[in-house]
């Protein structure tokens, strides 16, 4: 879901004429600033506006995870856990060279192995850039190999062990071609070219993908330009200019459950169990690839073991699993192995040149960013988000280039482009503050118009050690302490493909059904809370059935859209089901539907509050066994362009002798519209913060530049933060009522710390040592290099 497309969808939807409107007064603003009211025109059948969380029973209250007991008992059925009768196990065969043409593939040995039931050779590789003009390449029977690990074939057998054995027996002959796996090498005029002509990559439903119709020279694709005012004039007006180069690494998603599918291909219906962030995206792509009507594709995602942007659509493994299932006439499970998972997709790296000008009073006059990043054989390495959207500046020029190399494709990864961009931009802003002799928080008070972040900065001033912050490099010993902050920005995107059904049965039980999936962010729980609020019964008593395309369509979970897109539909469906219930039972209660309401968990007569019933008693009077209501996301109430964000504070120690950084404390102050379940939001922010620290200090894809392979395709050499590196984390969540939908909810996945932490650590590192870290990961080697203690070593 490219952000632009989403915004467009929202705009178009908002522009639709609607003659049945009414005006309502909504709570608006941030409690710390005093809540205000905002009038909005809303569709006539919208539910009444919700009061602030403090006045609600279930929404906004810490609520236990709906599927917590199942998850702690091993009962949650993830795609990797699906075992169907007669199911086969499959393994992908991957390319063993970084670049070349396949001259032959011999599957004979593999097919002869006892227990093997099907072999499928890939005809088309999905998720990578494709030549604008395919004629620029010699025709070939098999896809050209452009990275080591590129999928080539798949085998299915009666056990995983036999499938693994058979995969090794598939013999592939190559005609190798010159390759390049380093971003800066790939920019050279004489570098081997990854594509013989201009090539573009589409993004997934979760974003990613770079601009199309931009120039391409050799491996360099771009630039994509964003421009405002005139930077020359802006820099001429500046009293101070900071300028620097920043480098970030490739990060792999490393979700614990690898990408994978179980496909049961039957003539009348294809059932697809998918480890996906978007049941709808999987259904769309299966229908598209296999020319099937969508009505014959069913996608199920009961539990999902992490995605972080990596898992949308059919993927190569989904297409292979489906082909194997069709050939073998049996269900096939195909999960990537860990090595394949590391290669399948990633967060692109970056080399950014950033220049910012300001006047002596701290007014920004010009911002210029040039970035080069590699998304391997894909595009989407742009980093300009923070530079363009955090602060207003009259003169701006950003130029983003993608550089192709022979490595696995980039993909959407939690706040695409923003951690990279923020690492450079928020450090440069910090550098400006130092030059201006201004406190970094006070400087941001001056340049940041966002009211939520202003409150968040104030909370950090009051609740952290900030006031005891020393000038840079004050500690005299080898261990130096520092504090730093950085700010994030993310955008309100809404996916209008957000529908659900709420059903009330005569026994008083309530169910919610939607195809939307829960990645572990707690979607099931917030949906239960929203339904519970309408019916006045506890969330635990609502049955939530999601992650199945047999239910009404749900939004793909990318770009933090889920909570903001689906909860209004859920509230509307619950509200309508309640109204239908009232209308159906009112005659039997000798009253009218508009005289019925739910208060304090009971159904009451408005004109006689002494008379009340339980929901069960009322439902028992239904004339039919059940009533239900279906609702779809209504357009945003206003066209205001909204952003969310956070301010993250870091306290750390740098051991200047060993080069190790110890993060001791993080204070995260964040906003995400109306928080539905603070317990879950805090879990997500903890996770964003820890992923951010992991990105800043440890994680790094290492390529063998001579052989063209990723060297650390496992979880011991690809280092991810573990228990011992977890600092104390304090989260302060502020409410920010925006009067945009019937719930005002918003997602927090992207803005939850992953964007800021590398920059905040960089700023704290400067405060500790007086030296700028312009390169991540801040490994001991990179730290000692920055401190001038050892020469630079190339990874």
């Amino acid at each position, binding site marked *: 879901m490219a952000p632009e497309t989403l915004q467009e969808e929202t705009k178009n939807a908002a522009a639709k004429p609607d003659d049945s409107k009414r005006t309502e007064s909504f709570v608006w603003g941030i409690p710390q600033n005093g809540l205000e009211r905002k009038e909005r025109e809303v569709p006539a059948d919208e539910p009444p506006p919700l009061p602030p969380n403090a006045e609600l029973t279930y929404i906004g209250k810490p609520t*236990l*995870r709906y*599927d*917590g*007991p199942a*998850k*702690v*008992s*091993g*009962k*949650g*059925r*993830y795609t*990797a*856990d699906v*075992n169907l009768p007669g199911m086969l*196990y499959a393994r992908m065969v991957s390319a063993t060279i970084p670049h070349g043409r396949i001259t032959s593939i011999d599957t004979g040995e593999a097919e*002869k*192995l*006892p227990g093997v039931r099907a072999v499928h050779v890939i005809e088309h590789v999905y998720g990578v850039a494709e030549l604008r003009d395919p004629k620029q390449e010699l025709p070939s029977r098999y896809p050209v190999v452009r990275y080591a690990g590129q999928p080539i074939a798949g085998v299915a057998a009666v*056990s*995983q*062990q036999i499938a693994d*054995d058979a995969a090794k027996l598939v013999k592939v002959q190559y005609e190798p071609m010159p390759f390049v796996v380093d971003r800066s090498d790939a920019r050279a005029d004489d570098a081997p070219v990854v594509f013989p002509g201009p090539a573009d990559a589409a993004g997934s439903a979760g974003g990613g993908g770079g601009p199309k119709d931009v120039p391409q020279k050799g491996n360099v694709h771009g630039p994509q330009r964003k421009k405002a005012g005139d930077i020359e004039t802006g820099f001429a007006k500046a009293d101070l200019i900071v300028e620097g180069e920043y480098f970030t690494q490739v990060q792999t998603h*490393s*979700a*614990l*459950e690898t990408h994978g599918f179980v496909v049961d291909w039957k003539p009348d219906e294809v059932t697809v169990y998918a480890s996906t962030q978007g049941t709808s995206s999987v259904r769309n792509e299966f229908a598209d690839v296999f020319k099937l009507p969508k009505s014959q594709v069913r996608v199920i995602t009961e*539990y*999902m*073991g*992490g995605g*972080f942007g990596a898992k949308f659509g059919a993927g190569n493994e989904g297409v292979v699993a489906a082909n194997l299932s069709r050939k073998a006439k049996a269900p096939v499970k195909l999960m990537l*192995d*860990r090595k394949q998972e590391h290669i399948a997709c990633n967060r692109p790296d970056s080399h950014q040149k950033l220049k910012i000008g300001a006047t002596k009073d701290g007014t920004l006059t010009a911002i210029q960013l040039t970035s080069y990043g590699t998304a391997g054989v894909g595009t989407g390495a742009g980093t300009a988000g923070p530079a363009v959207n955090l602060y207003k500046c009259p003169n701006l020029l950003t130029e983003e280039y993608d550089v192709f190399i022979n490595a696995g494709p980039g993909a959407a990864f939690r706040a695409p482009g923003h951690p990279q961009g923020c690492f450079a931009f928020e450090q440069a802003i910090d550098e400006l503050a130092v030059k201006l002799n201004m406190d970094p928080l006070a400087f941001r008070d001056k340049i940041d118009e966002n009211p939520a972040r202003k409150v968040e900065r104030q909370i950090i001033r009051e609740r952290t050690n900030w006031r005891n912050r020393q000038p840079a490099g004050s500690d005299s010993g080898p261990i130096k302490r520092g504090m730093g902050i950085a700010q994030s920005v993310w955008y309100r995107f809404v996916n209008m493909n957000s529908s659900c059904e709420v059903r009330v049965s005569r026994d008083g039980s309530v169910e919610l059904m939607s195809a939307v999936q829960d*990645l*572990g*962010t*707690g979607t099931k729980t917030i949906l239960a809370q929203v339904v519970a609020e309408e019916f006045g019964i506890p969330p635990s008593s609502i049955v939530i059935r999601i992650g199945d395309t047999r239910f009404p369509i749900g939004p793909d979970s990318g770009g933090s859209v889920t909570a903001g897109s689906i909860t209004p539909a859920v509230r509307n469906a619950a509200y309508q089901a309640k109204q239908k219930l009232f209308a159906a039972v009112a005659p039997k209660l000798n009253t009218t539907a508009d005289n019925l309401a739910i208060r304090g968990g009971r159904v009451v007569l408005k004109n006689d509050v002494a008379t009340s019933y339980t929901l069960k008693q009322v439902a028992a009077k239904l004339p039919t066994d059940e009533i239900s209501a279906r609702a779809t996301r209504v357009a945003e109430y206003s066209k205001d362009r909204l952003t969310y964000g956070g301010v993250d504070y870091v306290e750390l120690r740098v051991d200047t002798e060993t080069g190790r950084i110890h993060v001791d404390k993080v204070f995260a102050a964040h906003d995400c519209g109306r928080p539905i379940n603070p*317990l*879950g939001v*805090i*879990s*997500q922010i*903890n*996770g*964003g*913060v*820890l*992923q951010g620290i992991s990105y800043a200090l440890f994680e790094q894809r290492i390529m063998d530049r001579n052989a063209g392979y990723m060297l650390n395709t*496992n*979880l*011991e050499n690809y280092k*991810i933060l*573990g*228990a*011992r590196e*977890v600092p*104390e*984390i304090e989260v302060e969540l502020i409410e920010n009522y925006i009067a945009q939908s019937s719930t005002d909810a918003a997602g927090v996945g992207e803005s939850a710390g992953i964007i800021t932490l590398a920059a905040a650590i960089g700023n704290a590192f400067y405060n500790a040592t007086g030296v700028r870290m312009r390169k991540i990961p801040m490994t001991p080697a990179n730290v000692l290099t920055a401190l001038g203690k050892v020469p630079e070593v190339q990874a």
Partner: protein
Amino acid sequence: MPDAPKIEFSRRGFLKGAGITAATTVIESANALARDAKDALHSERILGPEALPIKLKVNGHEHAVTVEPRYTLAQTLRDNIGLTGTKVVCDRGSCSACTVWIDKTPTLACMTLAVDAVGREITTIEGLAHGETLHPVQAAFVKHDAMQCGFCTPGMVMSCAALLERNPNPTLADVKHAVSGNLCRCGAYPKIFAATLDAAHQRQAARLVTLTSEMEA
């Protein structure tokens, strides 16, 4: 594999190797394997490569399965016995998602051969609760929301519950040490620590209540 050379699979030779790998990851499972290796030294039996019938005692129930000697315990539990609560994430002993207990000792099921678990008491995440009553660590994980996607959760719970068995009153540092081999990509660690410490406190409090009532009686 008609043309493949016949591989002589020596249990003793393999165990030597496996013991060394495990020693670098989880000391407890290395100890368990070392015991087994000692037994194997006194036996010259060669198993495999063909599948052989074995019996595994899992969560108090005996399961008869036919597996090749190369099958790991993790694969056997998941694919042959259908206990999919035990997760496979790295499949090489670096993430602890597959942690089960063998004779009460936390062990990596992806680094243990199914044939080596014969005659042992295997406890998986499915066997930790008493019927519908969650183990105190499981209950505390739910209470503290100590999970997101939940894929690391079974391994985390098995590691933390084992910690409380050997150290009923752990410090934060003890908990961090106990799960230092367990990877969580969603970043649930702070709540995992809090949940485990809380479970320990609850158990201690429950013990005190029992002691007091016994003294009063």
